[in-house]
C-alpha cells in the first residue's frame, strides 16, 4: 500500500504565499485571543484548590453548589468530570489559599450522598507563580538548545528556519487553548514541549533531505531542490503523523479525563507541526536565500557516506 505515488511532484513552495497568509491569519487570531481572552489556566499556575469527588450514583450539581455556598465557598466552580458520577470542584486562589480548604470542602459535602475523595490538588500562590515562570523558561531554553544544535549540525539559516517553525507551532497550539478555553495545566505545558520535539523531528527530516539534494542536484534552482525534497519526504511525514495521531487518539479517548488536555494539545501540535515542517520551515529557508554554496564545505564527508 502506498499513500502517495513515488513520482509525485506537488509544487508546495509555489503556494507559499497562500501558506504565509494562512499562517499569518492563524497567528494573528491566536495572539489576539491570548491577549484578550488569555488562557484558562489550571490551578497549577494560578494557585488554588481542586477537589475531585466520586459518587456511586449520577449526581445533580445544584445540591453540591448549595452545600458549598452554605459553607462560604461561594466562588467554587463545580463541574461534572468525565462522567455524571464524578464532580470536580475548583476554588481559585483569590478566595482561599490554604491547605485546609480541601478538607473543609469534603466536610461540607459529607451529606450529599456518600462522596468519595478521588483527587485533591492544592497549589499555593507562590508555587503557582514559580511553575508559571519555570514553564515559560523551559520553552525558551528548549528553543535555544535546539537553535544551537541545528546551527551546529546544519547551518544557521536552517536553525532559524526550524525555530521559526517551532515558534509558529507553539503559538498556534497555545492559541488553540486560548480560543477554545480548554484547561491549560502543567500536563498541557509538557505536551507543548513534546510538540516542540515532535515538530522539530519532522522539520529535521525535511532539512536533511534538502541538504542531501543540494549536494546532489547542483544544477537545480534552490526552490526546486526544496520542493523535490519535500515531495520525497512527504510519504514519511504523513506516515509518522498518522501513526502518532493514532496513538494520541487512543490516549484521548481511553486515557481518561486527567490526560485529556494533554492528548488534545499533542493532537493539535502534531497537525500544526506537520503543516509547518512542509510550509513554514522550508519557506523560511527560501526566504533566507539558502543555496548549494552554503553547504559545500561538508561535501567530502557526504561522499564517504554515499559509498556502498
Amino acid at each position, binding site marked *: 500500500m502506498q499513500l502517495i505515488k*513515488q513520482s509525485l511532484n506537488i509544487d508546495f513552495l509555489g503556494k507559499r504565499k497562500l501558506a504565509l497568509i494562512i499562517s499569518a491569519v492563524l497567528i494573528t487570531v491566536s495572539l489576539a485571543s491570548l491577549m484578550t481572552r488569555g488562557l484558562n489556566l489550571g490551578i497549577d499556575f494560578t494557585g488554588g484548590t481542586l477537589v475531585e469527588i466520586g459518587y456511586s450514583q449520577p449526581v445533580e450539581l445544584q445540591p453540591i453548589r448549595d452545600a458549598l455556598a452554605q459553607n462560604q465557598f461561594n466562588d467554587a466552580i463545580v463541574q461534572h468530570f468525565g462522567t455524571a458520577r464524578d464532580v470536580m470542584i475548583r476554588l481559585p486562589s483569590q478566595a482561599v489559599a490554604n491547605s485546609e480548604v*480541601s478538607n473543609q470542602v469534603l466536610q461540607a459535602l459529607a451529606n450529599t450522598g456518600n462522596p468519595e475523595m478521588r483527587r485533591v490538588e492544592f497549589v499555593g500562590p507562590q508555587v503557582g507563580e514559580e511553575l508559571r515562570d519555570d514553564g515559560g523558561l*523551559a520553552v525558551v531554553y528548549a528553543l535555544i538548545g535546539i537553535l544551537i544544535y541545528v546551527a551546529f549540525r546544519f547551518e544557521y539559516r536552517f536553525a532559524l528556519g526550524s525555530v521559526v517553525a517551532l515558534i509558529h507551532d507553539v503559538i498556534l497550539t497555545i492559541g488553540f487553548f486560548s480560543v477554545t478555553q480548554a484547561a491549560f495545566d502543567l500536563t498541557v505545558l509538557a505536551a507543548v514541549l513534546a510538540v516542540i520535539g515532535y515538530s522539530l523531528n519532522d522539520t529535521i527530516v525535511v532539512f536533511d533531505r534538502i541538504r542531501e539534494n543540494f549536494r546532489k542536484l547542483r544544477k537545480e534552482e534552490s526552490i526546486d531542490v526544496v520542493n523535490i525534497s519535500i515531495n520525497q519526504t512527504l510519504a514519511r511525514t504523513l506516515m509518522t503523523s498518522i501513526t502518532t495521531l493514532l*496513538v494520541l487518539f487512543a490516549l484521548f479517548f481511553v486515557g481518561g479525563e486527567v490526560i485529556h488536555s494533554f492528548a488534545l494539545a499533542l493532537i493539535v501540535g502534531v497537525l500544526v507541526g506537520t503543516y509547518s515542517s512542509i510550509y513554514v520551515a522550508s519557506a523560511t529557508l527560501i526566504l533566507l536565500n539558502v543555496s548549494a554554496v552554503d553547504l559545500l564545505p561538508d561535501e567530502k564527508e557526504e561522499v564517504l557516506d554515499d559509498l556502498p
Partner: protein
Amino acid sequence: MMNRYPIWGYLALTAVILIGALYAIPNLYPEDPSVQISHDSGSLPADLKQRVESILSLNEMEAKQIEVNQQQQLLLRFDNTELQLQAADELKSGLNSEHIVALNLAPAVPAWLRAVNASPMSLGLDLRGGVHFLLQVDMTAAVSKALDRYEADFRSVLRENKVRYISVKHNGDVLNATFKDEESYQQGLDALKENFRLDLDFTKIKAERGITLVAAFKLAAQQELQNFALQQNITTLRKRVNELGVAEPVIQRQGTDRIVVQLPGVQDTARAKELLGATATLEFRLVDEQGDAFAAESSGNTPIGDKLYYERNGTPVLLKSRVMLSGEYITDAASGIDQDTATPAVFITLDGKGSRLFSKVTGDNIKRLMAVVFIESKTEYFKDEQGQLQSRSRKVEEVINIARIQDQLSKRFQITGLDTSREARKLALLLRAGALAAPMNIIEERTVGPSLGQQNIDQGKNSVVLGMLLVMIFMVLYYRVFGLVANVALITNLVLIIAILSMIPGATLTLPGIAGIVLTVGMAVDANVLIFERIREELSNGNSPQASIHAGYAKALSTIADANVTTLLAAIVLFTFGTGPIKGFAVTLSIGILCSMFTAILVTRALINLYYGRKQAPSLAI
C-alpha cells in the same frame, strides 16, 4: 551484496532482549495487599512472628504468607484489602508502640526472579494513590527562635562577667544589648565577642540613653542555622510519618527551605496535614500567686519577671517568665485517661537531665501553683498591601492546667486539662516525635484516592494497548513483511522500556509517564518509516533488493540520529524544569527514544537480514 550480521551480533541482540524480558516479567505479577511491621530498634524481636500469628488467630484471621523482607520488616500478605485493613487495625492495638504497622502492596514476584533482583516498576502516587506535600520551612521564624536562645545566653554571659547592662532585647532579626556608658559597653563587647565571635557580627549604635550593641548573624552562621533547621525538621517529620504507619514514605529536602513529603496509600489527608505541619510542645511555669492577672490585663503592665497568659476559658493568669521545664526533655508520651478525674491525660516520661532538673525545681517549689502551657503554631493567611496573599505562623500559647505541686515530680508524671482524647493523642504523638526547629506551611498538595489510582492504571494500560494495536495494524497494511518486522521491534521496544524503568532504582511510573510511553510508541515507528521509505525509493530507482536494503539503512541513519537527538533535547529540558509528574513524562520519553533507536535500527535489521539476507532471497514485500 549480502545483508548479514555476524553470529555474535545476533547473539548480542538476543541477549539484550532476553535480559530485558527477564526484568520486565515481574510487572506481570499482581500485588498482594500486605501489612508490614518494623521495630524502632531496626531489627525484629525474635518472637514477633509468633505474637503476630497469635493476634491474627485470636481474631480468626489468617495471612497468606508471613516473611521477613530485606529491610528487616515482617511482611504479611493477605488475600484481600478488607482482611488487610482489619489485620492492620488489630495488630496496631495488639503490639506496643515500639512497632510500626504499615499498609503496603507487596509484589508477588517468585523467588527465582527476586534472586536476580528483578522487581516491578515502582508506581507514582497518581497510580497507586497517596499524598504528595511540598512544605515550606519558615526560616524567619527559625532565625527568630535562635535569637531567643541567644538573648538568654547574652544575659547569662553578661551576668557571669559582672557587666552591668540596661537591657538585652531581641528585635526583628537582630539582638540589641544596651549599656549605660562606654566602659560597660566595652566590657560587654569583650565578653560577648569572646563567646559568640564566630556566629555573630557586632556593631555599635548610639541609643537614647546609653550605647546599644547590635548583634546580627554572620551569613555563614545563618546558613548553617537554616540548614540545621531543615535537617531537624526532616528528622522530626520522619518520626511523625512513622507514627502514621506509611509503608514507603519519601521525605526529601528540596532547595534551601523546602521539604517534599510523599506518603503512598495515605487516605486520611486531614490527619496527615495536621501532623506534618503541627508544632506543639509544652512548657511548665510557676504561677505568680501574688500578682493580679486581671489588673495586668486591663492596664497592660505585667509585673517584672512575669508574663500574662490565658487559660482555655479565657481567664488571664500571670506566670513566671522563667521556664521550669520545656518539651525538649520529653522522651516518651502516651495518651490515656486520668484515673481520678476520668478526663483525657498525657503520660510523660523525661530523660535523665530533664528528670534531674524537674525534680529539683518541683522540690524547691512544693505547695506552689504550677501551670502547664500548651504551645502550638497555627498558620494564618492574610492579604498584604499589594493584595498578595501571604502566610504567617502564629504562636498560640494556652494554659491547659494549673495544679499545686504536691510532691517532687521526676521521671514520670501526667498532665490533664485537654479537652478531648483526640487532642491528648495528638499532643502525645507530637511530644514523642520531637519538636520542629521551625514552623512549616504546606504550599502544595496532590492527593489521589485509591479508586482513581486504579482507574488511572487501567486507562493507561488500555491506551498503550489500543495505541499499539492501531499502529501495528497500520504498519502491516502499509509495509507488509517489513511492517511485521517493525511491529516486532515495537513490542521489543515496549518490553525494554518497561525493563529499564523496573531496573533503575528511583524511577517511578506516573500517568504522564504512561503518556510518554504511548507517545514513544507512535514515534518509535518513525525510524522504521524513514528506513522503509528509503528502501522503496532505492527500489524504484532500479536498485537490487539487497542493495536497496543496505542503502536504505545507511542513508536513513543520520536523519534518524538528528531527529532523535532533537527530541531528546526537548525531553532533557522537560526533565530539568519540570516538577513531579512532568519529570515522569520526560523520563519515559527519553528512555523510549533511546530504546527505539536500538530496536528500530538494530532489531529490524537483524530480522530483515535473517529473512532477506539469504542467497535466494524472495522479492521484497514492502
